[in-house]
């Protein structure tokens, strides 16, 4: 442990991995024992960030507060549906926030956005491959994103932090839509390559 602490980079990574483990155990405490103190810890951690995202995407302060409540309530209700082998906690919370925002904008009660794990026609249990992916995903994705050229990273940030449509990104950055799409494709490809190298 001491050895790890002496090296800066691995320490950061190790801390993040340990942190992921903490988040997962908080969720499992919520799911299994309806633990409100675990829930509060998760709220303190993610509530302000979810609000930050909503505000960046153009929501008013009131709407953003309201969406934080919705997102956290969904986490409380669905904690038992979170599957650690599928991915990390922040990804799961991101999808809940994305869906809550879409629900707020839409009038029709049809869920076009689904939890990808609940829609399959045939019952496909997570295989070894996805299990490995789930454990490593967070750090690999983060590492890959850190190495993206700024022009690609900017497009990803606009899409995911501000929920900005690709058409809007094109206007904002004064780029043709095709250029925005190819930057998105390149960024995604980089992620996929990094992941595949580890298989």
């Amino acid at each position, binding site marked *: 442990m001491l050895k790890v602490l002496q090296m800066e980079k691995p320490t950061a990574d190790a801390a993040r991995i340990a942190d992921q483990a903490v988040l997962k155990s908080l969720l499992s405490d919520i799911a299994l024992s309806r633990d409100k103190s675990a829930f*509060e810890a998760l709220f303190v951690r993610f509530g302000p960030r979810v609000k*930050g995202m909503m*505000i960046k995407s153009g929501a008013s302060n009131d709407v953003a507060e309201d969406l934080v409540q919705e997102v956290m309530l969904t986490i409380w209700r669905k904690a038992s549906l979170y599957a650690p082998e599928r991915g990390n906690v*922040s990804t799961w919370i991101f999808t809940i926030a994305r869906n809550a925002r879409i629900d707020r904008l839409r009038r029709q009660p049809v*869920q*076009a956005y689904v939890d990808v794990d609940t829609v*399959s026609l045939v019952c496909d249990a997570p295989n070894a491959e996805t299990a490995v992916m789930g454990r490593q995903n967070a750090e690999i994705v983060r590492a890959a994103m850190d190495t993206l050229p700024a022009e690609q990273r900017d497009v990803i940030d606009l899409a995911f932090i501000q929920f900005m*449509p690709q058409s809007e990104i094109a206007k904002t950055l004064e780029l043709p839509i095709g250029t925005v799409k190819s930057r998105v494709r390149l*960024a995604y490809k980089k992620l996929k390559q990094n992941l595949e190298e580890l298989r």
Partner: protein
Amino acid sequence: MSIHHHLDDASLVRYASGDLDAAFAIVVASHLAMCGKCREAVRLAEAMGGVCLTETPEADLSQGAFMRLSQRIDAELDKDQAQPGEQQTSEAVASADVPLPLSHLIGGSLDDLAWRHVVPGVQRYRIDMADTQSSLYLLKIGSGRTMPEHGHGGTEMTLILRGSYSDVIGKFDRGDIADLDEHVEHQPVVDSTGPCICLVATEEPTRFKGIVGRLMQPLVGI
């Protein structure tokens, strides 16, 4: 199920970031229901969202935000205790033909729909959605029939639910998705023994060419 035609990476990312409008999102979600590879791919794209979430600057929450949340949860816990054993109603069950996300809109059967003939050999069932500026519809095209050549007015996605067709891009079977941008021109021919049924989302009315094309216009007429 072996699927050969998948989502474009740019579309995967649009889905993951919530950028697809409802009509396209339904087509994508229906493909995901049939395609494990794309489900995994969307998960990876969503992981970018997860990283972004942890890097988003925090915004201060209002006073008592957790208290309000805590009260709502207590109310739910009380309700759970008052009504033990009450389960959440399960979602619509996907049939062999209709993927779950689509079954919420049209039910579980492709055969019980009020299909309308648009031209000989081609029937359409329009799916009304409130939150879209695009069109979502099902097409049923008879065996051996050719769709007239058309360029795309905008993005178009086609998911095969039954039968198959071939065009310049290749052969499209059940579960395959044609995720095309505005530059692609294609002329699918149905090559299955029975009709081909596909779910289509279009951004703008598809422009058909020539006289047959004008006859086909009701297919997408808005």
